[in-house]
């Protein structure tokens, strides 16, 4: 008790005379080197990723209308709330507001159909945060991309709602109510072109984003802007999106609908969730290999599995499952792909 009072008194004395520093009373922090650090932090990285997603997210509100906004808000709020409650319950340090749960909620809602009932979005967020992320130990320990686990869980729980694409606004109506990949799967390439009018019209629609699809995946150009911003800031490696999208392009071109080298790579590269997935989910640092070489293997693998599912699988789209499958082999990749040590013999 008495020693406590003494400490308080000392600090009061120091407060009164801040300029007269008593060297002999001074206590210095002792720690291992280095003593200076860069001003990056986890939350800075996370909020930058959110910023990079913003253009495509805002576009979706204008394009799909009010339900898009509702779903994104529900996704984000429920993700952050789940993280907060788990951390509170487990008496951990609260890091729910560092932006990472925000990303998960935003990415999840952006990868869902805009017409999905908001309560399903909330359940997806719950699965993403509580089961995929926090049950593994929280940020840094999760094996799978939380947003994709949330999406996959919704896919198996409500397959109809997850694959129903209704006409939301007039602009969507102008093209088609189904997603381009759906049309391709069920009606073939020729009818896809017919619906859009011409090849160029289709590429233009897919580049700008005036097509049906998941909430945030439609606008190639806005996602590119966000992705290039992250590459410029050094938060993601360009190798990942380039290798993943490139692999999809090359493989879909080779294995075309009417024989070898007859595919439409441009269409496949912009279709579905590939741009969103390649720039924002296959680059989720926690769940991908840590070395650049490993990341290239990851990206090529994810691209190849995507093509396999799109061309041969039952689903029209395979980005989500391909990334999850590659997440599963990430520890293995990291174990075998290590940088060469400086001065290593042989």
């Amino acid at each position, binding site marked *: 008790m008495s020693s406590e009072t003494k400490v308080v008194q000392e600090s009061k004395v120091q407060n009164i005379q801040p300029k007269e520093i008593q060297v002999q009373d*001074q206590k210095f*922090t002792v720690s*291992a*080197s280095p003593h200076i650090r860069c001003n990056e*932090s986890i939350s800075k990285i996370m909020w930058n990723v959110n910023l990079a997603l913003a253009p495509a997210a805002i576009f979706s509100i204008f394009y799909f209308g009010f339900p898009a906004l509702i779903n994104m808000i529900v996704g984000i709020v429920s993700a952050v709330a789940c993280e907060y409650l788990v951390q509170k319950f487990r008496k951990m340090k609260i890091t729910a507001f560092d932006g990472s749960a925000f990303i998960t909620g935003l990415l999840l809602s952006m990868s869902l159909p805009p017409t999905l009932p908001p309560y399903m979005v909330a359940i997806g967020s719950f699965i993403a945060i509580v089961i995929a992320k926090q049950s593994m130990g929280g*940020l840094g320990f999760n094996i799978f991309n939380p947003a994709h686990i949330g999406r996959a869980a919704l896919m198996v729980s409500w397959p109809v709602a997850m694959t129903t694409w209704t006409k939301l606004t007039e602009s969507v109506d102008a093209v088609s109510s189904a997603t381009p990949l759906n049309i391709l799967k069920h009606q073939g390439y020729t009818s896809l072109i017919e619906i859009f009018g011409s090849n160029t019209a289709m590429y233009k629609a897919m580049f700008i984003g005036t097509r049906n699809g998941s909430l945030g995946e439609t606008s190639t150009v806005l996602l590119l802007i966000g992705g290039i911003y992250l590459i410029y800031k050094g938060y993601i490696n360009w190798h990942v999106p380039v290798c993943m999208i490139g692999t999809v392009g090359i493989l879909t071109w080779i294995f075309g609908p009417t024989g070898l080298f007859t595919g439409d790579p441009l269409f496949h590269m912009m279709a579905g969730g590939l741009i969103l997935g390649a720039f924002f989910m296959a680059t989720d*640092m926690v769940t*991908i290999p*840590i070395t650049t070489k490993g990341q290239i293997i990851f990206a090529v693998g994810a691209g190849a599995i995507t093509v396999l599912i799109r061309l041969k699988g039952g689903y029209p789209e395979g980005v989500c499952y391909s990334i999850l499958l590659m997440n599963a082999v990430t520890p293995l990749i990291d174990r075998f792909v290590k940088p060469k040590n400086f*001065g290593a013999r042989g």
Partner: protein
Amino acid sequence: MLKRFLGGIHPKDSKVYTMDKTIEIPPLPSQVVIPMSQHIGAPCTPLVKVGDKVKKGQVIAESDAFMHSPVHASISGEVIKIAEMPHASRVNCLSIVIKNDGLDEWVQGIPLHREWDQLETAEILDIIKGAGAVGMGGATFPTHIKLSPNKNVDVFIVNAAECEPYLTADYRMMLEYADRIVTGVKIVMKVLGVSKCFVGIEDNKPEAVSVMKDAFKGTSVEVVSLPTKYPQGAEKMLIKVLTNREVPSGGLPMDVGVVVQNVGTTVSICDAVVSGIPLIERVTTVSGDAIKDPKNLLLRIGTSYEYVIDYCGGFSKTPEKIISGGPMMGMAQFTLDVPVIKGTSGILALSSDVVNSGEESPCIRCGRCVKACPMGLVPSMLSILGERNRFKEAKEEYGLFNCIECGSCVYTCPAKRNIVQYIKYSKAQNLAQSAKK
């Protein structure tokens, strides 16, 4: 054509505090505390006892061990105490305290003048050994041992990169002691019997590059301006960049035919060989945002940090950390009672604005440390293995002992992980384990 080394970081160099300050000589302190261990190797044993009168330059401690360097009195006066005292890099160390008699008298026979080019190599090495010369960059490897490589050496490199932020001691020496550097370099080239020599300087010090180029005009010595990138001054990186030779894992520079000396060491070699002056003083940068009047000082070995900082006007704000050396690899001090030793390249006082490191959180595997590591390691994994006491795995599968502890990984880590601390701990645990066997 210059090669590059992989990895590295670009911290703010903060040299502006002292870059343009000429080397100053403060008045002598009333006493000096001279530790018996100021070098890598066996500590010395005192040759004097309390009450003895000593003179400047007198040998006051020696050792029989191969790996050692003798210690000299840095002022004249009386030995008043021989005891364990605080030490900048080993907490406590047996030290000799000399009370200044104010006369500053040299021991007999110093200074002298020698024609160094008349001397035999063995004589020069003996002189350097006797002068207590050690690597002045901070590692304090005994110079005479480094200059007697048991392998063929064909290149001598002068490390003048000074890649640590804040430090400007080497820079000022290059501007002010150019003649002695030239002589020192020539002596070393003669001892090693090499004709090829590089002086590597980072390109954030263009003035030093031009002064050195002028000074070495007409010699075979090549002054090279290197890209500013930390840790450019790490021995292995410097060799790679200048010669494209890669020191093998666990090896020494001489394994690739190279010997590297800090530029400050060449000055002390010159002093020792030409004038017979032992290593009793050194140039130290006193800097940091908490120092009122940052300076470059020529300090006698054994001067206390407190005296030095007082001479620089004391603190301008509350220092959070006192660092011996640079901010990347220097040692944080718990007291100002530590003395300046042969390896003290800098004394920094940094406030919490600069050293506020933030709270450590789990690794998010962002890979920034992997990109920053100049040694091609996976620092994040080493930190995790260290955290979980898996030291053997760190050593055998993740190249633990290749780490040069440069701190690039910690600098760049957004999760503020103390990676180097885990690595140092893992190394110590591995060494303890193998010592048991």
